[in-house]
């Protein structure tokens, strides 16, 4: 059965704490931390963007499973912060990996679930016999308006899954999606920062879609929450995934390993996929994983996954694990953060 042949992630090295953001905007840091369950978030360096993060994540996947890059048949990249409005990130990544000229590729966009939509697409192409391997990437350098609550969580990072039909370390048994037109979060063309439709953020958007996709997957697989060793959900903050896990009947032991937003922030298209990457760093043969993404607008993609014997043969330390990237950090204050993220108006001799 088709599934994940290899995986790799990348989280920028810089971090900022909510206390530092709250200090600048005169907010109560404790109240914010208790509201969103986030203690730090990643910050991209000025020379990092979705293309560089995607390349690093994909290269990490190929370090764990060095296939000939000419055998990659498709590259799909999901993000809401592609570096260009017109000119694909996928072409840059393909060139950096040394992929073949004969290649299916595109950039995807569906708020935070565009990367998992790419996974479904690549899996379908493998199952249809169009390609032997494909890469799906979810990656973002998301922006929250200065002073907005999103500024405490909007972070940067990404994960790449090499998907194929042979030697899979994790079989994708089932996948399903739900979609509805919901005005919970959007960004108009040309606007630097997104807007959220407060009333729609929680129940009608995140919870409804995530719950529905999870329920649908468990119905298709004939499984119950207790059949899973791990569960991972989209994680816009630390609170929502914890609550949806409990509503669905999952225990903390099942969801804690895939919950990274409290320490790296919300990596948007990278969020659920990076949580899944952290699970694959630890998983053993036979482990079962429920993974559900969510994208505002709105929709959810669900996956029922079983880890195979092949994971035992993989050198997972051939690329940095999520824990490695959590251990190797540099802290910045708000001034440096504002400079890195181009949040300050500058003179003509500053790029």
């Amino acid at each position: 059965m088709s599934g994940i042949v290899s995986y790799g992630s990348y989280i920028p090295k810089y971090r900022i704490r909510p206390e530092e953001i709250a200090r600048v905007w005169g907010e109560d840091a404790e109240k914010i931390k208790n509201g969103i369950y986030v203690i730090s978030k990643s910050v991209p360096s000025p020379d990092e963007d979705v293309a560089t993060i995607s390349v690093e994540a994909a290269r990490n996947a190929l370090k764990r499973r060095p296939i000939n890059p000419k055998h990659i048949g498709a590259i799909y990249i999901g993000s809401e912060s592609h570096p260009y409005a017109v000119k694909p990130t996928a072409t840059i990544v393909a060139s950096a990996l040394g992929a073949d000229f004969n290649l299916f590729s595109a950039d995807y966009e569906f708020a935070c679930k565009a990367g998992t939509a790419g996974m479904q697409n690549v899996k379908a192409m493998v199952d249809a016999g169009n390609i032997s391997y494909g890469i799906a990437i979810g990656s973002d350098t998301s922006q929250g308006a200065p002073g907005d609550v999103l500024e405490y969580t909007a972070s940067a990072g990404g994960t790449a899954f090499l998907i194929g039909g042979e030697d899979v370390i994790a079989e994708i048994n089932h996948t399903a999606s739900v979609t509805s037109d919901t005005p919970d979060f959007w960004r108009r063309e040309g606007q630097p920062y997104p807007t959220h439709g407060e009333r729609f953020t929680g129940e009608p958007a995140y919870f409804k879609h995530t719950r529905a996709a999870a329920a649908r997957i468990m119905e298709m697989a004939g499984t119950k929450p207790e059949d899973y060793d791990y569960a991972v959900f989209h994680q816009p903050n630390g609170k929502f995934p914890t609550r949806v896990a409990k509503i669905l009947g999952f225990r903390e032991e099942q969801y804690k390993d895939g919950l990274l937003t409290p320490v790296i922030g919300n990596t948007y298209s990278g969020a659920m996929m990076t949580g899944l990457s952290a699970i694959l760093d630890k998983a053993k043969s036979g482990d079962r994983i429920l993974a559900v993404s969510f994208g505002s607008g709105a929709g959810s993609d669900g996956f029922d996954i079983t880890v195979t014997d092949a994971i035992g043969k993989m050198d997972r330390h051939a690329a940095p694990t999520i824990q490695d990237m959590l251990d190797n950090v540099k802290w910045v204050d708000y001034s440096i953060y504002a400079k890195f993220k181009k949040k300050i108006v500058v003179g003509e001799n500053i790029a």
Partner: protein
Amino acid sequence: MGELSRFWRESDHRYRLVAHKCGNCDRVYFPPRDVCPTCHRESVGKMEPIDLSGKGEVVSYTVVHEAPTPFTRQKPYILAIIKLDEGPSLTGQIVDSDPEEVDMGKRVHSVFRKVAEDGKSGIIQYGYKFVLD
């Protein structure tokens, strides 16, 4: 547009550290060369592209305080000569470290980063930089 064409032509070596290896003497050249400067005519048609690992060590470095416009947000930045494990030496930026963390002999590996942006509407140039191991 001259700059745009040059970057596009050089994307294999800038993006992936593709070097040329002389089929006659096995020397590795980066940036790639069409003819081996040692073997001359003997090397014609024998220069093979190889992907460098990006692993190497710091031979020397300097801290740049007067940065050109594209690097102003990274000032001061570190420029180093790196000797790659496959033989060639090249100049590259060391990122994600403070100058006091860098030293001669330290191991580095290459990363893929933005090198320059042509204003707000021009092309973004990507390429290799280095981080400490």
